[in-house]
């Protein structure tokens, strides 16, 4: 399983043609206490870069973009009652949704873990 990151701090963990999408640890720290997550319905289709979800901290709402195009196959309903899971475990239990990746070549435009770390260090 390979994890890719976008410059907007989404990650996508790829397992076959299914990708699990969420926000990076860097992003959850920057956002602070997360109080609400709005998830896409199963069956929703996205183009790369579409608004896919919303994450709200005490202070503000932030859009989460689809890192690649595809169709939502599952969403993490547990976040509705426990949005703080994103702070506690953003890259594991705090995932947002799973999608069937339409075009795997779009992953090439994303960063791998090492490149993303360098990217964050430069911010």
């Amino acid at each position, binding site marked *: 399983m390979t994890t890719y990151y976008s410059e907007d701090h989404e990650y996508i963990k790829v397992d076959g043609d299914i990708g699990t999408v969420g926000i990076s640890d860097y992003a959850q720290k920057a956002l*602070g206490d997360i*109080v609400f997550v709005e998830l896409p319905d199963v069956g929703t289709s996205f183009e790369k870069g579409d608004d896919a979800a*919303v994450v709200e901290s*005490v202070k503000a*709402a932030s859009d989460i973009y689809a890192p690649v195009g595809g169709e939502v196959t599952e969403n993490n309903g547990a976040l509705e009652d426990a*949005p703080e899971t994103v702070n506690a475990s953003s890259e594991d239990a705090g995932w947002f949704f799973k999608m069937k990746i339409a075009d795997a070549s779009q992953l090439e435009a994303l960063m791998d873990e090492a490149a993303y770390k360098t990217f964050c260090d430069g911010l």
Partner: protein
Amino acid sequence: MTDTQDLIKTTLHAIHVAAGAKMVPFAGYDMPVQYPLGIMKEHEHTREKCGLFDVSHMGQCFLIPEDGDFATAAKALEKLVPADIQSLEPGQQRYSQFLNEEGGILDDLMISRLGFAGHTHKIYLVVNAGCKDQDYAHLQKHIPDNVKLDILDDSMSLIALQGPKAAEVLGSLNAKVKDLIFMTHTDLPLGETMADCWCHVSRSGYTGEDGYEIAVKHPDAEWLVDKLLEHPDVELIGLGARDSLRMEAGLCLYGHDIDTTVSPIEAGLIWSVQKHRRSGCDYIGAARIEADLANKQSKRLVGILPEGRAPAREHTEIQDMDGNKIGEITSGGFGPTVGGPIAMGYVTRKNFKAGTPLNLIVRGKARPAKVVKMPFAPHNYKRG
């Protein structure tokens, strides 16, 4: 960003930076929005123990009557605000608003008559940072020549100590602060000797909790803050939690819940207009207060409790159950003490009553909510 170089730093700036604060531009100042504790924990700490806020960006000034007669200054100020000023006793404080000719709110402010012997003719004002230059100009323009405006921004810092432990903490520096009740104030030393660190201390604040606002001379400010931070119950609190605390307390924020487009009556601030100031007075904007009270108001600021967990932010459209737009959210977010989203906004007539069902249009989706009485979290003022 080159802009940050032009931002004003308060005397406590180095303390914020050393504490690891995230600094943001606010009303021309470089201010802490949160510390490493985070907004949620800072909020809870203030409700449970005691939070320390730097509010030195706010404007402080004196009105000093040259004839030494309090009534001279009080009468001058009464031309500009709906509140009764002449009846203020020494050491008493009142909340009011500057109005324009149409009765719209130019700013809201705290007004105190000094209580210290030999100074009871002076009036002390605290105004919003973003409005202060305009407020000072408004005062200069309207007060007579025999009342002097003395602006304190270059000499006084302002901090707030808020929460159930505030009296115990500040009382450890001078026990006399415990005798103050809500909306009274005094001048006293908070230093190690009776000559040290004279401060103007009022029992008031912007969190709904018991607590104090302390005006302290710039050279003493860092010492006082360090001294207060030595207490294990005290944490520095940023503007982020200040906003969630005041929202839960149902207190208006200028530029959001109140501005020149609304009158004090529409904003639900009638409690701040004493009875005999509601009609037959000639202060700027008085006709609007009188008209709003005589006629049925077209809109009013109400508390709104969204169902579910989705916060409704400022500018969210409010609809009635038939889908008609009836207003807009002016402040909205998450209330850590409430444990869910809270909001306030203006709604049209017939929708003022607590319990009225509404829809909030959040990202195109209608989400149910209802009108509720404010505050969202109970006030814990020390009323005597």
